[in-house]
């Protein structure tokens, strides 16, 4: 016998959970409610896609290595060796 139907969450509640969902901060029940809503609601699904895209970009950052970073690496390597030989 199937589980009794739970009351689905509305768009307001779902949108309020988008970030906590993407951060892995929802309880199992909250996550399930959110995913059920998302599967049925195109607008919230698009909102979720937007937020996920943004958070992925924030997490990744600008990974292009610059000449300045390479120069800094050498500068710090030299400082480490100086520091090590001093101690």
């Amino acid at each position, binding site marked *: 016998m199937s589980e009794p139907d739970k009351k689905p969450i509305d768009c307001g509640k779902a*949108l309020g959970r988008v970030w906590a969902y993407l951060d892995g901060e929802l309880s199992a029940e909250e996550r399930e409610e959110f995913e059920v809503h998302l599967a049925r609601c195109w607008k919230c699904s698009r909102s979720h896609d937007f937020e996920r895209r*943004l958070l992925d970009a924030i997490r990744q950052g*600008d*990974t292009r290595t610059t000449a300045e970073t390479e120069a800094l690496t050498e500068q*710090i*390597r030299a400082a480490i060796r100086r520091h*090590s030989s001093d101690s």
Partner: protein
Amino acid sequence: MIQLATCTPRAVVSDAPRSKTEDFEGATLPWLPDVRRYALRLTGDPADADDLVQMTFLNALTGWHTFRPGSDVRRWLFAICRNAFLRNRSRQARTVATEESDLDAIAAARAVFGEQGDGALAALDRIDLPEAIDAAIAKLPEVYRLAVLMVDVDGLSYDEAAREAEVPIGTVRSRLYRARRLLQEDLLRQAEDLGLARGAE
């Protein structure tokens, strides 16, 4: 002999028969570009960021004996970098005048996409997102910037970030959501300045 070129930075932290300095360099220097990006996001200034990176690596060298093999070198370096940054500026700057409630933060979370619709998604495709995000993070008030860095970049949970910042978990959530709202607004403004956001709808 471990081949450094074929090892991940974490894998280098092993029982290799190397000097302490070589071991340290092999484990930490591959993360320097990440630490520099992190420092740049913290300080918003390239020269200050470079000073902070140097301080981070020298502090890390001093504390290398406390590093637990097998744990996350990148996260360890980020924590040292963040602590060095926090120690080097006034405590007063750590507080914001008003903390927003969770409800405000949740309302903020809803707003941007609702206002912009699919134009917002299209805008993200058309701007130089990594560069735009770094510029937007640099403009955030410090407590918001720290919340984004701890949760989104370090990967701390809300609870871990709250303990690290010594604030209630609701404050972390509130700062984080507010920061993301500000970032979104800034990115969409940057896209609009290029004529990309609303026109894309």
